């Protein structure tokens, strides 16, 4: 049975009393209402102790009612959905909610680690830099694990997040952050002017402080104005209000980041829905009406549960009808704090006393005090008597030196307000100090952004409305909308008089950063040790680095630093403000891109056919390629691959090679263009012929290779490696558009247009005769090696046929339009059946290329020259081409470079592995004799042994030498012979035959 809501007020509040909700905190059952946050529901149930601090494990209560909360952090939900460090102040209550306090053991009330408080005299700021150094090995073994266990806050789930996230784009003229009076007024003005408006509100209801503080606008109560305004905005089709959405960052060019908590208010997202959505909002103008954050005053015992921001007390009482205390004392240094007195009294709560740091209070307040029957004490709170069950008594140092005590079960504190300058400062704009309000106000906001209302340092309701309205109208106009904005809403401004007070000196720990347990004396220590710069202060004490990003602590911290270092606050300055404005789930930034949808997948035209064949696939970039086609009874991949290779070498096989990049190069200057991008010449290639080409980068290193055919006088068909397809296209476009704009050339990727198959093996022609129109001459004379032309297939389909070979066998590549790729695979099977045609995958392809000594990815490593690869002779000396000049640099032409050679183990049974290093025989391996490494290996069914390619110093001069393959990672050492890299058919008779 849920416990009674002891601190729920009898009436009032924006909660739905007809919708009770059950929840559990640390296993104990409670109830609350729809419209509660977890914090307000806990308060309504009289719960004061909600968490433990980071370092000292001090008991902590709820300090605020918003996203600036430093104390009330919980683990929300359970199992895979457990979310550590969730602010109880922003978590919406739902039926069945489960939350647990964190950073305590075994329980919140009895936390063993609170023993740390005993060591507090030693655990001062930066203490760990001065110790834990001896013995050196103890750091990782003893000290660090202990520190790590004690640190951290909540526990992550530790298993995959079961929820989904997505990301979306939105576009508007005017983006508004915050739906308080300033934000709503801005939306009204911009919307009426005809602008497209998006208003983001992090709360689940719009209204901002209007929901807590009320007031009168245009002569009606704030609540009425609010509903009227929301209705007017709802009628504007181009105005959208996004609740549960926090604008967290501003990026270049008017791009903003926002996080929408789509379904966090439910136990779990409904089917097909996401938990949260990341918005990229493109806005011409942005009005920041994010309000201000009330700041604490630093005094001894200020972290006792029951000490709460004065505005938060109002919020809990007025908006949630939940009383944080029954007998409340107020400690204020400004007029605004007094509003808490009015709110509390009107809710029937008792005021124990008001401690006002100012020399005087207004007559109105005096009469309020006498009516409420509480004393007004001039002075400061200097201590709090209480503990995990809350405040019992407060000690007051009166102006003039006397002391007083006040019995109270809650203490409301108001140290003034800090405009929320985060968003306006994210482009490294430094806010400026405003003496009138003793706070930093926005300056140097990113282009297109303005702040209005409390976010701009104008706290009065009237000012918020008028400034917000003006900002909205201006923003709309700047975005090109000149409609009539009409008249701004009107309200009175409350008085705002403040005497700055940051720190009340006294005995006992006085907290500046609650969550990180940074005290006033830590700041003094930092100053003493020379960490005077605010950035040093932050890093040395960890001030402002907690999950609240210093929202309640930074300004007080630097004010104290200013005081102890004898500088003014503006001289001391602020740290750099960094996004996100509130912490954002990492899952939301990833959105859809996780698990198997991390990246897109590219499928070849014959993919589904290959799936039917039972192919095993390999990821090659984004592609899924058939790696081999296992058959029943084969014990491992090697057996399958060996079969495929043998089938090709002895009969015929085919392989989908559609993944190669394919580019149409058109235009009268296509040949001249290719001459400049390849090291060899293409302008003299005859129509109907293909040629192997090699391109360099401008620094003389090999970039890519492939076969290019001339299909017409002004039309070449260029192929690239699979890996470089996109990059080569980009490079060629650069050459075309930037380097050689005078050439008349057109480029198009046709990679997806053509399904391309390699058909290889001595029976290739037999197979092709079955499938190609009998009129086509496929004889060696009619279609010689390196021929390329269009042919007609049986059934009338037009195809392109290229007589090129990667395997070293008699081979053709055939291209058909991609939608016929699936049929092509099936028809090749059909046509080849009489010849035992065998589909083969990338592994067999790789084996045959190593047997043939062709270079591929491992050799095209981005550090090899054409000469290193044995292709130096291709470098034309008769023309300019990309990379020609720098390829001649001394170190790139040095005789001792590592060049491609073949290797074979001296023990024929020995397996080779890529990545082994080459050491001269008989020498002890060391940096001085590391002469190269093995780039590619395979088991060659043809030679019945493992063979490989290696890059070896002066390798070509050392053919026949026995060297040592050294592979300490895998504990292998063996001798290999350096040999000609072309293991198979070195004179090429087979591919020409």
């Amino acid at each position, binding site marked *: 049975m849920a416990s009674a809501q002891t601190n729920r007020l009898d009436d009032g509040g924006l909660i739905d009393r007809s919708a009770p909700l059950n929840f559990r905190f640390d296993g104990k059952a409670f109830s609350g209402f729809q419209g509660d946050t977890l914090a307000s529901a806990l308060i309504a149930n009289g719960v004061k102790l909600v968490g433990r601090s*980071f370092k000292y494990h001090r008991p902590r209560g709820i300090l605020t009612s918003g996203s600036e909360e430093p104390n009330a952090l919980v683990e929300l939900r359970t199992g895979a*959905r*457990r979310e550590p*460090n969730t602010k109880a102040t922003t978590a919406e209550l739902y039926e069945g909610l489960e939350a647990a306090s964190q950073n305590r053991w075994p329980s919140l009330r009895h936390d063993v680690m609170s023993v740390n408080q005993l060591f507090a005299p*030693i655990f*001062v700021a930066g203490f760990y*830099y*001065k*110790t834990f*150094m001896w013995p050196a090995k103890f750091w*990782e073994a003893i000290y*660090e694990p202990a520190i*790590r266990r004690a*640190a*951290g*806050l909540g526990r*992550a*789930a530790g298993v*995959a*997040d079961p929820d989904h996230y997505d990301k979306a784009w939105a576009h508007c003229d005017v983006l508004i952050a915050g739906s308080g009076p300033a934000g709503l007024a801005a939306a009204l003005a911009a919307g009426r002017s005809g602008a497209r408006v998006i208003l983001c509100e992090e709360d689940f209801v719009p209204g901002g402080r209007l929901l807590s503080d009320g007031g009168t606008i245009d002569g009606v109560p704030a609540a009425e104005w609010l509903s009227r305004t929301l209705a007017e905005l709802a009628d504007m089709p181009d105005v959208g209000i996004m609740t549960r959405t926090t604008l967290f*960052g501003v*990026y*270049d060019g008017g*791009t903003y980041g926002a996080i929408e908590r789509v379904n966090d208010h439910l136990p779990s997202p409904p089917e097909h829905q996401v938990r949260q959505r*990341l918005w990229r909002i493109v806005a011409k103008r942005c009005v920041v009406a994010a309000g201000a954050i009330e700041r604490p005053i630093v005094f001894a015992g200020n972290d006792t549960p029951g000490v709460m921001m004065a505005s938060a007390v109002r919020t809990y009482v007025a908006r949630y009808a939940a009383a944080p205390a029954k007998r409340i004392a107020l400690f204020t240094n400004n007029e605004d704090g007094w509003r808490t007195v009015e709110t509390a009294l009107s809710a029937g709560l008792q005021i124990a006393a008001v401690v006002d740091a100012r020399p005087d209070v207004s007559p109105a307040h005096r009469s309020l005090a006498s009516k409420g029957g509480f004393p007004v004490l001039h002075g400061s709170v200097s201590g709090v008597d209480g503990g995990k069950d809350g405040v019992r008594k407060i000690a007051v140092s009166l102006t003039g030196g006397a002391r007083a005590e006040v019995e109270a079960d809650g203490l409301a504190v108001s140290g003034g307000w800090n405009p929320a300058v985060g968003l306006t400062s*994210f482009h*490294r704009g430094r806010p400026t100090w405003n003496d009138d309000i003793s706070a930093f106000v926005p300056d140097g906001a990113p282009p297109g952004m303005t702040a209005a209302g409390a976010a701009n340092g104008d706290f009065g309701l009237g000012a918020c409305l008028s400034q917000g309205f003006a900002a909205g109208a201006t923003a709309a106009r700047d975005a090109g909308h000149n409609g009539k904005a009409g008249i701004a809403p009107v309200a009175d401004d409350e008085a705002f008089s403040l005497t700055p007070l940051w720190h009340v000196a006294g005995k006992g720990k006085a907290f500046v950063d609650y969550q990180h347990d940074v005290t006033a*004396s830590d700041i003094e*220590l930092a100053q*003493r040790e020379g960490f005077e710069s605010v950035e040093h202060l932050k890093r040395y004490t960890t001030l402002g680095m907690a999950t609240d990003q210093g929202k309640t602590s930074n300004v007080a911290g630097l004010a104290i630093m200013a005081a102890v270092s004898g500088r003014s606050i503006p001289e001391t300055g602020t740290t750099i403000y*960094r996004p996100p404005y509130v912490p*954002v*789930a*990492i*899952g939301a*930034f*990833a959105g859809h*891109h996780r*698990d*198997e949808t991390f990246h897109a997948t590219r499928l070849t035209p014959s993919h589904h056919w290959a799936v039917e064949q039972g192919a095993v696939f390999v*990821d090659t970039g984004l592609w899924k390629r058939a790696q081999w086609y296992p058959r029943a009874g084969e014990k491992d991949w090697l057996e399958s691959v060996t079969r495929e290779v043998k089938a090709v070498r002895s009969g015929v096989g085919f392989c989908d090679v559609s993944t190669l990049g394919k580019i149409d190069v058109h235009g009268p200057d296509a040949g001249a263009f290719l001459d400049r991008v390849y090291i060899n010449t293409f302008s003299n290639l005859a129509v109907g012929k293909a040629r192997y080409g090699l391109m360099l*980068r401008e620094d*003389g*290193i090999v970039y890519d290779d492939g076969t290019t055919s001339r299909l017409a006088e002004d039309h070449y068909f260029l192929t690239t490696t699979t890996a470089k397809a996109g990059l080569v296209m980009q490079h060629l476009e650069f050459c075309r558009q930037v380097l050689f704009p005078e050439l008349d050339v057109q480029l198009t990727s046709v990679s997806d247009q053509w399904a391309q198959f390699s058909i290889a093996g001595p029976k290739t022609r037999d197979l092709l005769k079955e499938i190609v129109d009998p009129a086509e001459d496929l004889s060696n004379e009619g279609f010689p090696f390196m021929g390329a032309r269009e042919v007609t297939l049986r059934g009338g389909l037009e195809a392109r046929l290229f007589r090129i070979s990667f395997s070293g066998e008699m081979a053709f590549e055939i291209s058909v339009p991609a939608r016929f790729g699936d049929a092509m695979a099936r028809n090749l099977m059909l046509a080849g059946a009489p010849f035992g045609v065998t589909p083969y995958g990338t592994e067999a392809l790789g084996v045959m290329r190593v047997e043939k000594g062709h270079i591929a*990815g*491992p050799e095209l490593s981005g*550090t090899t020259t054409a000469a290193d690869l044995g292709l130096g002779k291709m470098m034309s000396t008769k023309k300019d081409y990309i990379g020609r000049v720098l390829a001649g640099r001394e*170190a*790139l032409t040095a005789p001792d470079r590592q060049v491609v050679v073949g290797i074979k183990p001296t023990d024929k049974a020995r397996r080779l*592995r890529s*990545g*082994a*290093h080459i050491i001269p025989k008989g020498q002890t391996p*060391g*940096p001085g004799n*590391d002469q190269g*490494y093995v780039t590619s290996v395979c088991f060659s069914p043809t030679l019945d042994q493992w063979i490989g390619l290696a890059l070896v110093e002066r390798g070509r001069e050392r053919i026949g030498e026995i060297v040592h393959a050294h592979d*300490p*990672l*895998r504990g292998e050492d063996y001798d290999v012979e350096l040999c000609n890299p072309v293991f198979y058919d070195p004179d090429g008779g087979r591919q020409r035959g």
Partner: protein
Amino acid sequence: MKYSIFSLARAALSGHKNWQRTWRDATPKDRYDVVIIGGGGHGLATAWFLASEYGIKNVAVLEKGWIGSGNAGRNTTIIRSNYGLPGNTGFYELSMKLWERMEQDLNYNTMVSQRGVINLYHSDAQRDAYARRGNTMRINGIDAELLDLAAVRKMIPFLNFDNARFPVQGGLLQRRGGTARHDAVVWGYAHAASALGVDIIQNCEVTGFVRDANGKVTGVETSRGKIGGGKVGMAVAGSSSRVAAMAGLRLPIESHVLQAFVSEAIKPLIPGVMTFGAGHFYVSQSDKGGLVFGGDIDGYNSYAQRGNMPVMEDVCEGGMALMPMIGRVRLLRQWGGIMDMSMDGSPIIDKTPVDGLYINAGWCYGGFKATPGSGFVFAHLLARDTPHEEAVRFRLDRFRRGAMIDEKGQGAQPNLH
């Protein structure tokens, strides 16, 4: 005052009122034997090694802001020596050895934590490349292990092994790799160097070089006046081109922004440092509990010290692809540093063509791990006028000669390194 648990306990008795400044707040003298521009980790380490190893104590470190306010204070704190190419391999191992004795050298706990660095591989080609690199490390006497899938699963069972777009197949592990507390490294070197007489001068921006009739650099003009120097060394990665331009030099360097991220603090979740091999993501967990992570550079020249959303998303996508358990962990802070991206991805430590001016630059995004090694070899160069044997390949003229140290094989395209 020597730092220890005993001095801490004694200080506690007097309410910590007797601690001295961690480093002296020096005012500039007219002349120093060596002036080092840049009060980051590299500059301060150089000063400390000059004083402690080479007996040159009349040294000034000039810092335009506060020490450690550049990349030393905004990196992801990883230390490792898992490089594959001659030049880098030996140098980074020298640096690693200096990390291993840093705390005792400096009497400052820089929290060097050798919890291991694992580079995951997701394909045979990547495995082969890591095998090549790991073998290079072993040949150079550096620890390296090639783990297969089973071993990785055992070590870090929380990765996405079962429904990943690019399944993990194994990893290259360097157990001696890990992390260190970046700010503490800066303060530790400052503390120790200052104690040996080095002047650390903050808020002192160099505005020009003082040259004699022969063009030799004999000092610097600063916002705090002219300061003479027998030799002037720059250690201003991120701003190298700007400072070098004052001496009329153009460098093979571009400045790029690298973003980094930290999550809210959580209880220990991740044991060491991990890098994803199928996307841009690497991560470790700080002692405080935050996941410290990053990925690729934004890819365009920038001095703005902040990046944009595409990279932020890309990094988080990598993180979620690798370990979808972090979905509900919140990103707390995002920041950007300016990287000296060199044309081959490797650093430059050399005399410049301008007599009297020495350069330490081009650290790309790997400068933190190099801090002690960089200081050591730069101090050697400044003291002896010849490169340290582990830095001979970091010469400035290597690009002209074609002797690049290009680990990634991307060529003269800094944003791809």
